């Protein structure tokens, strides 16, 4: 009965979304206040209906209702409760429901915090979001219904993919989707502005906090995913340039460009058409990511079950949404004014260069992701584009982008002078060059890549320090007062930029100085790596809720002093008969020690791999700082009112997901 309620609720939600996508937009075009006024109640009704469906599915998982196909294929009676709930989005149908759910959360958030918007603008924004929702709900009801019954019911479920049975599964997808889907707000703002012909500074001011919020979620979602891959896949990598990772990275790159370009549009009125195009692209890439994951066009570790009908549906949906909005762009954008003029050397120019670099980077990732498909479609054979391509393309694009990051915030709007900038940053430049030359030698060895990475990281540190110093000096007030006098948005920028520096430092050091050994170990034997001694304490058999495991422990000592114990497990998930490795990690600020149990060998020996990963945690610390910077910008005085409301929106989202 409960699943039928969920199903029915989804059908009602589709009808409501249709009404939301039709009446307010027509109302806005005709100036009909009643029709425009329908937008808010419809947005809220839609949210309630999808939430009911979501709760129904979660209930089916919690009560182990194996008469529902989706529950039976993605859960098992021995699966612990927290993973049974997370299994709601563990498969294709449920993750679509999560997507629709989060879209309705963003829609309802816009309906709550848009009192200051003109009625027609709000009606159009909510209407556009309603139309997107129609697509997803229709997709679910037509070819991916999570409530489909299984008759006769299964005795027990086939279990959740063991790879997904991890705390990362509970946070990573909702965070990532909050980010992905959050760009729908910026998209809806852009489309509404194109429809209404009001592309002005006010439009940029309104859509900025929403974009930043989505970007914060996306940053955290990608961070959680990368960290999860690091400890779950068992070989110490943290980014694989997998098609699905790329699908989340492309919107991030374009979203980052969008944040910067919105700032210019708001402050200087320039880049209007470009900003709109970026807003359309950020969300289009999110949709494209969905298509790539779900259509089976590309192979990936993330691949969901494939069905050509689904792929065709999403492709048609993509054509309607992206093609439609790009056509609208081509039609309306030429009427947009040019905005304020600026000099070749000015903050606008630097931000434009940054934008172009980020957009080209996103495009090159897109190219690398789709290239195998292009060749295949043209009948030129099958290839796979791996990390070598992305590493080669990415470093040359990111080097100037990071270098400009030091200069942009120092340059003046409109007209700046290169000699003056050079004068102001000469110390920062000297410090970073010196560090790049000397530090690697102290750490062991110098290579051009290590030197470049350290130079860029310290360049951002030093130029940010100079920026803060410039801004704080020259006043008699106490330092706290001076810090508080500067808008939080500015501090947010500084912290996010420092986050990039921390991230770059982490990547450089771990790539340059990591080491690993693979050894055959008998209990009691000792292995040596990076000044540490690892004593193999043997392997014990343990029984998990839905797996059996061999757990091997390594006692870590340095100069005879005990430091920690690494315990790594080789699990066999019994339902799917699938082996998994759980790495044993001792994380620390300076370095991680990472051990992963291999195969049992003869005479009770085991193969063991041990990794020394210096400063790898800085990679995620850097991402966390970027997100923190975004949050700080959102808490800026001019948004404070909206911030409180947005928080309530996020809380609601959490409640609904719980």
């Amino acid at each position, binding site marked *: 009965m409960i699943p039928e309620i969920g199903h029915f609720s989804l059908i009602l939600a589709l009808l409501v979304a249709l009404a939301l996508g039709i009446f307010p937009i027509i109302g806005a075009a005709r100036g009909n206040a009643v029709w425009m006024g329908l937008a808010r109640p419809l947005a809220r009704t839609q949210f309630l209906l999808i939430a009911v469906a979501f709760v129904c599915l979660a209930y089916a998982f919690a009560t182990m209702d194996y008469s529902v196909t989706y529950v039976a294929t993605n859960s098992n009676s021995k699966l612990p409760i927290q993973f049974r709930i997370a299994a709601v989005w563990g498969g294709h149908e449920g993750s679509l429901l999560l997507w629709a759910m989060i879209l309705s959360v963003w829609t309802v958030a816009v309906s709550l915090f848009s009192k200051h918007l003109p009625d027609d603008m709000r009606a159009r924004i909510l209407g556009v979001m309603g139309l997107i929702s129609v697509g997803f709900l229709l997709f679910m009801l037509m070819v991916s219904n999570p409530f489909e019954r299984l008759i006769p019911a299964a005795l027990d479920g086939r279990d959740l993919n063991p790879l997904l049975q991890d705390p990362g599964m509970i946070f990573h997808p909702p965070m990532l989707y909050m980010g992905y889907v959050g760009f729908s707000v910026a998209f809806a703002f852009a489309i509404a502005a194109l429809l209404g012909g009001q592309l002005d500074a006010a439009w940029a001011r309104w859509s900025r906090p929403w974009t930043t919020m989505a970007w914060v979620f996306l940053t955290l979602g990608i961070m959680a995913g990368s960290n999860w891959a690091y400890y779950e896949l068992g070989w110490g990598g943290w980014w694989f340039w997998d098609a699905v990772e790329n699908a989340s990275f492309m919107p991030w790159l374009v979203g980052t460009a969008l944040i910067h370009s919105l700032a210019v549009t708001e402050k200087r009125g320039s880049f209007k058409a470009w900003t709109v195009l970026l807003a359309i692209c950020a969300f289009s890439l999110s949709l494209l990511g969905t298509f790539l994951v779900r*259509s089976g066009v590309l192979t990936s570790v993330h691949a969901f079950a494939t069905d050509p009908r689904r792929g065709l549906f999403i*492709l048609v949906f*993509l054509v309607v949404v992206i093609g439609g909005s790009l056509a609208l762009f081509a039609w309306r954008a030429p009427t947009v004014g040019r905005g304020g003029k600026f000099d070749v050397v000015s903050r606008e120019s630097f931000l434009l260069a940054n934008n172009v670099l980020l957009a080209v980077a996103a495009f090159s990732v897109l190219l690398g992701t789709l290239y195998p498909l292009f060749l295949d479609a043209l009948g030129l054979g099958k290839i796979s584009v791996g990390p070598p391509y992305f590493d080669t393309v990415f470093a040359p694009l990111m080097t100037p982008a990071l270098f400009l990051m030091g200069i942009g915030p120092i340059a003046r709007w409109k007209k700046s002078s290169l000699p003056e900038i050079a004068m102001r940053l000469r110390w920062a430049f000297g410090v970073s060059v010196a560090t790049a030359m000397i530090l690697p030698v102290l750490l062991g060895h110098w290579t051009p890549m290590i030197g470049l990475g350290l130079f860029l990281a310290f360049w951002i540190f030093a130029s940010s320090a100079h920026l803060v110093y410039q801004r704080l000096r020259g006043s008699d007030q106490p330092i706290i007062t001076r810090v508080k006098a500067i808008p939080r948005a500015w501090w947010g920028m500084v912290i996010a930029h420092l986050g990039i520096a921390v991230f770059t430092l982490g990547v450089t050091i771990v790539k340059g100085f990591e080491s690993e050994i693979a050894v*055959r170990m008998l209990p009691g034997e000792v292995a040596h790596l990076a000044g540490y001694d690892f004593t193999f304490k043997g392997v014990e058999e343990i029984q998990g809720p839905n797996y059996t495991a061999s757990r091997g422990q390594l006692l870590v000592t340095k100069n005879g002093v005990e430091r920690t114990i690494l315990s790594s497990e080789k699990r066999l998930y019994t339902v799917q008969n699938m082996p998994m490795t759980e790495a044993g990690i001792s994380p620390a600020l300076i370095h991680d020690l990472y051990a992963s149990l291999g*195969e049992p060998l003869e005479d009770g020996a085991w193969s063991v791999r041990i990794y020394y990963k210096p400063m790898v945690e800085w990679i995620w610390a850097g991402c966390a700082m970027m997100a923190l910077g975004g949050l700080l910008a959102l808490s800026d005085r001019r948004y404070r009112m909206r911030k409180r409301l947005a928080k309530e929106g996020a809380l609601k989202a959490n409640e609904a997901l719980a």
Partner: protein
Amino acid sequence: MKRFLLPLIIFLVMVGFLFIGLNLDPREVPSPLVGKPASMFSLPRLDDPKQVFSPKDMLGKVWLFNVWASWCGACRDEHPILVELSKSGLVPVYGMDYKDTREEAQQWLQQGGNPYVATVMDVDGRVGIDYGVYGVPETYVIDKTGLIAYKQIGPVTYEALHEKILPLVKKLQTQ
């Protein structure tokens, strides 16, 4: 006006490719070699280059021929499944280490376990051409008469093994 149309045009071209892509299965390449005799190479073994292995030695048996490399990420996915399979003893698995170095390949086998009765080295990829290797990993089922009966592109998944490869092996073994 024209330059504002550019994004739309680029998008439409991409859609065209995606539409064609929908009808292609990235894991299934119709191999012209299925049903044809497997190439009877003779290559040095990984563990001892003085010894050679040739598919001729396997005439009269059904066997799996797995192409792998230590540099191949997807091989890590299928490796535990092959190790399990070799323990079950249902069908012998022979490996070909493709465009790889001996040292790294041996280290890889030490780490992940060695499911292969024997592995040969195809350093320059010459034999790979005869077998129509598109990418690593690939796995061939070869029957008693030395004909290629099936080709798995990409990693051997649990489903592929139990739903396609093993039933086929059983059928071929009874022939």
